[in-house]
């Protein structure tokens, strides 16, 4: 059962900020977020509690008749934090009360507790964190502490007693007024310039008129930096005539400007793209208004452009005209992020110091076109970035977790790969790189391999420096390497770019997306290598790619294509790898969808009709079947490496067959109306992908004078 002490304390704190302490009338000036920016977490808490921020920077409680005063704001934030903490503790208490006891928790109950504690870790005190730390492993705790560190207590003699021994946070300055233990809280209060009296919060009046909702829209390309526009209360129907860029919301320093006429109306109509990240502390609707990129608007007078000589021929029998380029350059829609702005953001960024250092490298070394994209994504979408081997999924270097309800996207960097070499009788066997994440194996229906290097608890027999960095060697021949921060910076840049392209609906061509991201990654490495005068900071495979890109860029492109289109990766369908084929496929599918919606047979026939040669030589590759094929090949690869026996392989294949659902993904999934809408979106996305490739070619030409 949950101890009563934290519960009582959590219940006490909001009471202390109640009306009883209010003595002085509200004669102070309203709080202005422009003058005194809020931290990310405070910003999210306000949003989650339906507070609104108006154009003049004032903060309004739901249903309140007056804005929050400046001296009230610390108490408002503290009240919200306490409320969030109390909600978490009550939820935990409820789960534990319904269980058979903490020592007899079922898997679901245990997972529920983990989920609640992980979600509200930032608001839990040191004592409560200590109570629930047994539910997490060391890496998870490190990641959560890095994401939500406890504030460091001042080294005052009165605080140095037995309860403070482990409360030291890794960061000297915690972002925002986070939850903390009782003694630490007291010390924090003593340091903060708090007002002497408290003013009660206005009670929400159900009959009061609804205040205007915060509507942050998009600045034009001429905006010098991150700008957040607040729509006026009366939206104008006239749309802006300039191309609009995705917004840059910097909660730490919100700068506002007058919204263009009709911006609010456009913002709702502009939401498209397959990925929807919702930052912590915001509802999906709020984030829709805030940060969803708008589709590129056609320029006022598009210049006639000669079609490029290359990419328009789909195959011997199929000729498709090049699509008209009526959209502006994709990167031209990205607002510029200056180094100063990003440095300011990093000071209070919700990530560990290690990740901040990596982000700083991205800011320092990324090429211009990629820097603006990646940094604006970090400042806008607030993805969770962590270095965690357990959550790295199938990725050798990084894994991107799609946004879920109420949670932003996550980019998990791997600290290093597991390296295993299968010994043969007389010859040296092939080396295999593996992930430490259990998810990489469980999704195949396989247990985690019994290699010592995969198990975090194993003790290495020795440590040395190899081409894979600082390497831990284990008795069974396996080893665990490590990536340098410079290499991780390139990996993170590529992951952020792919996330950004998905957010903007520019990822319909996986090959184009990967090429764009990898090329930017190599440009970053070129900048780092120039400063370090060596490329030894890269692991062998990444160094091979980097040298290939440096010396023979065409080989680099070919290698990406041949690996992405292979079955194990399963990312590029060879029948529609090119933009023209993909567009033709999309159009055929769309016409089939519109003509006889709901008939999967028609869609499949359309897929076959795209093949060069005009004949169906094999059954169509669906999204789900490609994913299942990829899993089967992965399982067989593990079997070939000697990590899985024949029985486990059979079980894995049966599991993959059982869990494969042909109607859960791909163009044939969903209701007919949704299917058609999705296909239309993919066609638009394909056009943007083609522009992306044009931009990449120009960037590479500029990079190689």
């Amino acid at each position, binding site marked *: 059962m949950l101890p009563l002490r934290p519960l009582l304390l959590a219940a006490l704190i909001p009471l202390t900020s109640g009306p009883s302490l209010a003595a002085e009338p509200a004669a102070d000036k309203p709080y202005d977020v422009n003058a005194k920016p809020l931290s990310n977490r405070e910003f999210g808490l306000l949003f989650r509690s339906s507070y609104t921020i108006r154009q003049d920077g004032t903060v309004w409680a739901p249903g309140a008749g007056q804005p929050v005063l400046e001296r009230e704001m610390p108490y408002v934030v503290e009240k919200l934090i306490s409320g969030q903490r109390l909600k978490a503790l009550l939820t935990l208490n409820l789960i534990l009360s319904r269980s058979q006891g903490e020592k007899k928790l079922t898997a679901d109950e245990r997972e529920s507790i983990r989920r609640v504690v992980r979600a509200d870790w930032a608001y839990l005190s040191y004592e409560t964190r200590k109570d629930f730390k047994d539910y997490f492993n060391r890496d998870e705790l490190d990641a959560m502490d890095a994401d939500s560190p406890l504030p460091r207590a001042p080294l005052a003699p009165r605080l140095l007693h037995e309860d403070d021994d482990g409360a030291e946070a890794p960061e000297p300055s915690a972002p925002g007024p986070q939850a903390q233990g009782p003694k630490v809280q007291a010390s924090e209060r003593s340091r903060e310039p708090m007002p002497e009296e408290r003013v009660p919060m206005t009670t929400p009046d159900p009959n009061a008129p609804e205040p205007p909702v915060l509507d942050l829209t998009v600045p034009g390309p001429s905006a010098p930096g991150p700008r957040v526009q607040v729509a006026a209360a009366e939206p104008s129907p006239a749309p802006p005539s300039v191309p609009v860029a995705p917004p840059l919301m910097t909660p730490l320093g919100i700068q506002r400007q007058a919204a263009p006429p009709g911006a609010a109306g456009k913002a709702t109509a502009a939401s498209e793209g397959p990925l929807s990240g919702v930052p912590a502390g915001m509802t999906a609707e709020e984030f829709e208004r805030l940060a969803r990129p708008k589709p590129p608007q056609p320029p006022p007078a598009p210049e006639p452009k000669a079609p*490029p*000589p*290359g*990419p*328009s*021929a*789909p*195959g*011997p029998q199929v*000729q498709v005209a090049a699509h008209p380029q009526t959209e502006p350059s994709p990167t031209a829609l990205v607002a510029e992020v200056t180094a100063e702005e990003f440095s300011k953001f990093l000071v209070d960024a919700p990530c560990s110091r290690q990740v901040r250092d990596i982000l700083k490298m991205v800011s320092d070394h990324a090429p211009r076109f990629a820097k603006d994209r990646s940094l604006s994504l970090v400042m806008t979408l607030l993805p969770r970035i962590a270095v965690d081997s357990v959550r790295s999924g*199938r*990725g*050798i270097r*990084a894994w991107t977790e799609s946004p879920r309800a109420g949670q932003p996207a996550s980019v998990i960097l791997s600290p290093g*790969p597991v390296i295993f070499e299968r010994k043969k009788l007389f010859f040296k066997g*092939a*080396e295999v*790189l593996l*992930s430490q994440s259990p998810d990489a194996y469980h999704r195949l229906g396989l247990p985690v391999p019994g290699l010592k290097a995969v198990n975090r608890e194993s003790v290495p027999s020795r440590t040395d420096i190899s*081409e894979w960095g600082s390497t831990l060697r284990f008795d069974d021949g396996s080893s665990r390497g490590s990536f340098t921060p410079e290499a991780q910076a390139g990996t993170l840049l590529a992951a952020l770019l792919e996330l950004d392209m998905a957010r903007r609906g520019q990822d319909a061509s996986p090959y184009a997306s990967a090429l764009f991201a990898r090329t930017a990654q190599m440009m970053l490495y070129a900048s780092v290598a120039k400063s370090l005068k060596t490329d030894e900071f890269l692991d*062998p*495979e*990444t*160094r*091979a790619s980097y*040298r290939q890109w440096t*010396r*023979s*860029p*065409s*080989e680099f*492109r*070919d290698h990406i*294509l*041949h690996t*992405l*289109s*292979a*079955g*194990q*990766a399963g990312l590029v369908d*060879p029948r529609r*790898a*090119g*933009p*023209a084929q993909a567009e033709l496929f999309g159009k055929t599918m769309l016409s089939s969808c519109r003509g006889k919606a709901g008939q999967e047979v028609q869609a499949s026939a359309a897929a076959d009709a795209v*093949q*060069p*040669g005009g004949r169906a030589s094999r059954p169509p590759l669906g999204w789900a079947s490609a994913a299942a*094929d990829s899993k089967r*090949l*992965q399982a067989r*690869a593990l079997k*070939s*490496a000697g990590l899985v026996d024949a029985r486990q392989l059979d079980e894995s294949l049966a599991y993959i067959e059982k869990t494969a659902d042909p109607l859960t993904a791909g163009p044939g999934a969903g209701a007919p109306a949704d299917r058609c809408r999705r296909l239309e979106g993919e066609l638009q996305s394909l056009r943007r992908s083609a522009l992306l*490739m*044009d931009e990449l070619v120009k960037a590479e*030409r500029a990079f*190689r*004078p």
Partner: protein
Amino acid sequence: MIPPRPLSPTPFLMAQGTLGLRPRPRRGAVLLAALLVACEARLARGQDDFGKYSPSSGRFTCELPLDWHAFEEEEPAGFAVHVLGPDDPAGSYRAGIDVHFVDGGRGAPAGGGSSVPAKQAIETLRRSDKLTGRQSTPVKRFAVGKGLARTFEVWETRFVPAELAPSVSQVIHHFVAVIESGDDYYVIRLSSSEEVYVDLRDVFVRFLKSFRIKGA
């Protein structure tokens, strides 16, 4: 450390206009088995399995297997045609032919600088690299229409797929041909895993024999 590529037991001997295995004394059973495999492979891919192909720019024509899939793209040095073929048994590397047209006045895929001559590009493509165990065969000549192709083979060891687990070190093989056309030139490469490259030799030979540069 990526293990160096083991020496190929049967390196190709590329002669004028022909590509074939170097004859070696073998036992009768082995020869019979090889003959049967070769006949089966030839029967599997008959003459009718190829079709004519020309990119939209019309710069060249060639013959491609009908079940391979071609597309074009622009790249910094010119443009490229990628033809994707069959996957390897492990599903880690898809075979394919890549044709890169290098505009002599613009740049080159190898070297990265401005206009690299064909000979320099060949040397770059034939570079050795201890890191990947990259090595190449000597350059041979091969008749292509009225012109001449310089052909060679390259082996290198790479982790594929590079970013996803399980990533296995695998030997990748490239048939390479460089065909000059005035100041411009074409770099043609058939890449595949070493496990299947012998089966694709005929495809590359037929592709090269049918390769015609428009106006040449």
